């Protein structure tokens, strides 16, 4: 089946994969500039989902663009590679809105211009960034701090009778990350929302350059605090693909366990947090109690409340003892029982359910057009889950995940997103049980190693918020390019479409139901 899908992909692109390209963990094709638009058109018609746009400079003076897609059945990402001069690439954003932010980002960081783009505004750089300075281009090292210039960001503008504009942020009143929201509203009803991000842009991709893999993984763990495992696993898998490292079964299983535990504590916490939006204070507190217990359990297992410091190149840095695994499983089982009770409170309270139902609708058409991933996509009835869409690098995981049926809901509202989280929490616990059982009769082994010091690879992981796609190019044992595509990057633009028609005070609730990471988006 996978073979047939791969043949189909070859037919669609009109050629065999590019065998000169050393990119591993993907099916890569080389395209000429003028082939891009028609190929993307055919790909979208065949339900390929836009995943990522990777700009890289393997040779100075030349920018290479890789358009990464996830195609049904192919089980590895499909890469349409383009070598381009830094101007005159046709924009695909009109046909594929999901690529719009990615193109704007590449323009900002590499100075590639996309012709015919529906939205050529800067994205990463704010209005005071000097023009013509592209910080990820090879050899660009501006004196720090980079000077500020005066400028203005051209927000979209809505005018009309009784239309008022409401600006929120970047700093918010609660313990929340920074971002700027502009609502246009008539009375309390929202007509439109524009999201301005990248306040927490730290230059993660640039910072990883020149680091040894272990240090780069420590950075990847800090792309988004509550998806530490997923980001480091995706980066590790990309490095392992690049260096052709085989991960032993025992190591792969522990990683999968960590991924599921990460999902569990996130979903449990999110269910409780939703109640902050509806003022159901007892359930909010209960959610915090459960989350605290899970964080303490994480620490007992891994040393870190956020499950950091275990994922390493070739496997895990330290194998948890079987006693540790058992007590983690006991803790997780108890936590899930509490989550079930919490969910009864959340869905059983008529006043609460009334707030969740029909609020923040996101249509499946928007999900597809914008390449939305994770819980948000699944709650709108679109079944995308990289644990199913993409292959696992090791047979051990494939076996565990062979039984996985991603939970979907069709409600497309806040309630549906909460239901999906609940179903996934249950599923995560079931997977954890399977993994611990399998681990008991899997031989321990040292992490995988390799003599190679260079190569390119793609890696992926399904984090709590959805699919992460990471590209790594290594040179002489150090990271030459790290490219992270977090789920939040795909999902932030979508929230603009879930708000209109709702009332202003429901925005925090809808935002919480998306639970997107600002840090993960902004990098």
């Amino acid at each position: 089946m996978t073979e047939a899908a791969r043949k189909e992909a070859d037919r669609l692109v009109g050629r065999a994969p590019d065998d000169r390209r050393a990119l591993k963990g993907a099916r890569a094709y080389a395209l000429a500039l003028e082939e891009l638009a028609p190929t993307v058109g055919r790909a979208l018609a065949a339900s390929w989902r836009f995943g990522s746009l990777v700009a890289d400079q393997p040779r100075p003076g030349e920018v290479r663009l890789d358009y990464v897609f996830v195609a049904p059945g192919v089980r590895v990402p499909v890469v349409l590679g383009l070598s381009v001069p830094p101007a005159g690439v046709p924009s695909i954003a009109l046909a594929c809105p999901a690529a719009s932010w990615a193109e704007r980002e590449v323009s900002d960081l590499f100075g590639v211009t996309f012709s015919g783009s529906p939205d050529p505004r800067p994205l990463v750089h704010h209005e005071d960034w000097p023009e013509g300075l592209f910080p990820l281009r090879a050899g660009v090292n501006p004196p720090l701090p980079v000077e500020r210039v005066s400028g203005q960001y051209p927000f979209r503008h809505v005018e009309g009778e009784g239309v008022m504009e409401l600006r929120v942020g970047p700093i918010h009143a609660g313990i929340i990350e920074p971002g700027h929201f502009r609502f246009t509203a008539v009375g309390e009803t929202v007509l439109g929302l524009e999201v301005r991000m990248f306040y927490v842009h730290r230059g993660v991709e640039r910072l990883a350059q020149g680091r040894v893999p272990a240090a780069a993984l420590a950075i990847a763990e800090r792309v988004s605090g509550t998806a530490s495992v997923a980001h480091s696993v995706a980066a590790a898998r990309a490095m392992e693909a690049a260096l052709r490292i085989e991960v032993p079964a025992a190591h792969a299983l522990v990683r999968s366990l960590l991924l599921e535990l990460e999902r569990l504590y996130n979903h449990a916490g999110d269910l409780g947090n939703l109640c902050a939006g509806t003022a159901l204070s007892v359930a909010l507190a209960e959610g915090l109690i459960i989350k605290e217990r899970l964080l303490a359990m994480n620490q007992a297992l891994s040393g870190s409340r956020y499950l950091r410091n275990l994922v390493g190149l070739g496997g895990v840095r330290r194998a948890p003892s079987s006693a540790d695994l058992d007590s983690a499983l006991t803790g997780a089982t108890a936590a899930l029982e509490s989550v079930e009770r919490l969910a009864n409170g959340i869905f059983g309270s008529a006043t609460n359910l009334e707030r969740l139902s029909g609020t923040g609708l996101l249509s499946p058409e928007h999900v597809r057009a914008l390449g939305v991933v994770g819980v948000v996509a699944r709650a709108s009835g679109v079944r995308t889950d990289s644990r199913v869409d993409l292959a696992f690098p090791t047979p051990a995981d494939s076996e565990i995940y062979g039984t996985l049926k991603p939970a979907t809901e069709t409600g497309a509202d806040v309630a549906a997103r909460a239901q999906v989280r609940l179903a996934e929490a249950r599923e995560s616990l079931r997977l954890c049980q399977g993994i611990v059982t399998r681990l008991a009769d899997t031989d321990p082994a040292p992490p995988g190693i390799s003599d190679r010091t260079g190569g390119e690879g793609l890696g992926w992981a399904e984090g709590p918020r959805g699919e992460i796609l990471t590209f790594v190019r290594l040179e002489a044992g150090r990271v030459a390019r790290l490219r992270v595509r977090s789920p939040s990057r795909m999902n932030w633009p979508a929230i603009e479409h879930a708000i209109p028609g709702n009332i202003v005070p429901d925005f925090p609730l809808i935002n919480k139901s998306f639970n997107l990471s600002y840090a993960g988006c902004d990098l």
Partner: protein
Amino acid sequence: MSLAVRLALTLSQAALLAAVAPLVNGFIKVLKARFQRRVGPPLTQGYRDLAKLLVKENLHAAPTSALFRLAPAVSLTSAVLASATFPCVAFGGWAASGDVLTALYVLALGRFFTALAGLDAASAFGGLGSSRDVSIAALAEPVAVVAVLVLAAGVGGPPDGAVLAGVHGTVFTSWRLLAAIAFFLVVLAECARVPVDNPATHLELTMVHEAMLLEYSGREFAASTLAAQVKQTVLLALLAAVFLPDGLGASGDPGALALSAAAFAAKLFGLAALVAVVESSVAKLRLFRVPDFLGAAAGLAILAYVAREAL
């Protein structure tokens, strides 16, 4: 009893209510904390917060006017004065008495100033809070008036707090309970409590009352905070003393006074506990459902009237 003594007693009742207001609010917070399986702040946290605010500077955003600076004092004064119209402890010659409706109007004056100040601060949220607050008030205030009139109907004359308490304190009637529930629902709305507002929220887009106070600091913020707490205590006290005057003593001898004071305290804190229970068991309503909620309160008040006529 001379007017002077009576005035002094009335004012000391007002002062006492104002003085316990942070305690009542603290009591609600501690109770809510217990429902959340935690210890919660000290009962006296409200006083500690006020003491702290007194050493802080008053900061003003450039465009604010004298109105902005005046509003906290006005709303605090109006909240304190509102309690002068009804007796908490004993009625008859001892008691504070006056038109209860006036009390409601005095409170409305405080709200009016707070809302204007919210607009004056020229921040987006202040304006949002003011407009929400005023639209809620427009529905809540008539219901409160109707509830009071239900009690006053048949008594004759203006709805004097002492007279109402005297008439209703001696007999228990079920319709009086209906009116009390209606008034309680209004209190929830007036005091920015769940399900209408959420006093514990940090989400500025959802705020009603707090949004109007976001720009205040120092002593002015202390006054605004205290004003809201006093208003809450006064409304609960009004509910306890006029709608549920049971246990209120008629004479001024010390034993009866003590008993009536104990009954009042029990009712006041019992009602505060009820606020905590409601706030912990229901979710906040969507803003556009608030009229339904207050409509239900109005319905109850009217039902109380019908029941009164029928029974």
